[in-house]
């Protein structure tokens, strides 16, 4: 029972952590929230759906979908962020919100308002049993994939020059620019990586819910929001930790709460968000020292 709970929390938490990490990458550098972030999952879902008839193997389709997610993420930068970045926080929030609405309604208009089935390889939903725990293969895969991604991500941030530049930009953007780090390159890279992480997480998410509809992006967006607020809006460790904490809280509610209170679960989680914003606005783990928006 306890082991089952731990596996459930880890598999859900690994997804949440990936979503949160993608959001915090952009927030860390620009101090701006990307409301169009959830729509990357929509892009993933519809890309795989549209490639359904093609003769390619599934993994090839998934890779194309992830490339699309990266592409749309970079588009978000170019259309919603870059033109208004200097103006005001509110402006960027609204443009990214508008961009999200644009994508959603494009899906509504050009594809269909009805949920569409997304093909997934059948082995993902087979269940395996070990140590008395029964769980679908996809849960094991998502834990594994997430940990591999996190290791690669941390190594990239720590050892590569671009990673170093991004960390510098997240700490003090103006100083980094003055020392010759190309601002636009760093920001575009951040968006591309954000798209990559959301793409991987979105593919895993799709294997879980198996269909796609125009409003599909809302839940991942909310998850990423809550997780980053809990863990710390400016720290990558915080985002990962926040993802796992959120999964723990959600799962505990699922196990403990009776059915008629369970429908108020969102009320509890969002109240936690508001409380954390009030008590510890910087989240559980503090990020770099300066948080001045540039």
């Amino acid at each position, binding site marked *: 029972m306890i082991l089952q709970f731990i596996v459930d929390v880890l598999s859900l938490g690994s997804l949440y952590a990936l979503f949160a990490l993608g959001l915090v990458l952009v927030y860390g550098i620009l101090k701006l929230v990307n409301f169009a972030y959830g729509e990357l999952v929509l892009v993933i879902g519809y890309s795989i759906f549209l490639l359904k008839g093609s003769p390619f193997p599934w993994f090839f389709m998934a890779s194309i979908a992830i490339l699309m997610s990266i592409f749309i993420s970079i588009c978000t930068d170019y259309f919603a962020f870059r033109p208004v970045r200097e103006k005001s926080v509110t402006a960027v*929030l609204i443009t990214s919100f508008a961009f999200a*609405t*644009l994508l959603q309604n494009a899906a509504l*208009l050009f594809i269909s*308002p009805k949920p569409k089935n997304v093909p997934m390889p059948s082995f993902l939903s087979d269940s395996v049993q070990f140590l008395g725990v029964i769980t679908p293969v996809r849960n094991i895969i998502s834990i594994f994939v997430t940990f591999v991604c996190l290791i690669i991500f941390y190594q990239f941030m720590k050892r590569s020059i671009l990673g170093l530049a991004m960390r510098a930009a997240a700490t003090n953007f103006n100083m980094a620019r003055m020392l010759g780090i190309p601002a636009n390159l760093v920001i575009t890279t951040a968006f591309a990586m954000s798209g990559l992480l959301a793409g991987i997480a979105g593919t895993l998410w799709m294997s879980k819910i198996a269909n796609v509809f125009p409003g599909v992006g809302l839940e991942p967006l909310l998850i990423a929001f809550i997780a980053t607020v809990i863990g710390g809006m400016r720290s990558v460790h915080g985002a990962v930790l926040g993802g796992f904490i959120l999964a723990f809280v959600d799962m505990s509610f699922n196990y403990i709460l009776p059915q008629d209170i369970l429908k108020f679960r*969102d009320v509890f989680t*969002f109240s936690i968000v508001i409380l954390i914003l*009030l008590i510890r*606005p910087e989240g559980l783990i503090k990020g770099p020292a300066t948080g001045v928006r540039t």
Partner: protein
Amino acid sequence: MNILKNENFSNILFFLLVFIFIYFINFFAGSSIFERIIINLFIYIILVVGLQVFMGNSGILSFAHIGFMSIGAYSSGLLSMPIQMKGFVLRDLYPFLENIAFDPILSICIGGIFTAIIAAILTLPLMRLNDAAAVISSFALLMVIHSIVVGWSAVTNGPRTFFGLPKATTLEIAILFSFLTVVFAFIFKNSKFGLLLRASRDNDIAAASIGANIVYLRWFAIIASAFLAGIAGGLWGHFITSFSPKSFYLRETFLVISMIVIGGSFTVTGAIFGVILVTTGYELLRWIEKVIKFNDSITFEFIGLTEIVLSITMIIFLITKPKGLFPFKEIGDTISKIIKKKK
């Protein structure tokens, strides 16, 4: 003549004339579809000008106002619904609410006050947050209100449709309420509270140093603004007479925010013209959607075009005119200046 010298006079007079003008257009058009659009327009004016009272003066974007609108709509509906309908729509209603059926207008006012009280309780701690944290918390507040409305089926009929409200909102009532809202918004903007709040919007540290208590100023503004949103919700509920929690969610939030952004959130003029422009555009696009659908016998569902056009317009507006069509000056002031020059 003291009143003529008042700084708000020219603005209020201008919008009184605009409202009367719209009323007469409707009177001569005599079409019931047109009248529905106009009533909707005036309800949106109450909501968006209400939002402007908070957002324009404090400079903080709020997603929560559609949530406040839903509180107003549901609470006024609960009070005014006829007793025999209550047994039919809400089977598990609490006994103390079962035998009440107030006059709709009275219920709308009580609904507004109730919304203001809820907002007062919920938002006081949130008012010290700035920038992204303030926006995310208002977004979270919208989610909380939405989930409570969906979940609390004893009073809201859950995710299903809430119906059986008496139809009470006529064009005259909608115009009267929105005129009062506009008067309030101008008086508030130029009052001591409004001036201090606008000072804190432009530079919070400087405003605090001259003694502005920013938290309480913002709190006061959001209570007033939530009251207006609640009134708008009540009027809307007694106009549509049946709605579900879906009517108060992200789609509507997007619509309202696009109105205030396109018009310009710093001025009441901007808020009103934003509503008029977006409503006109929206109805035109809906009409185009309909025409295309009927003429060419396209088989697929043709929805979403309106939102696509609206979101592209919004992005273009924010890039080219980030402060909206009326960034700083109210239209009444501009007009009176022109008149004085000619003299």
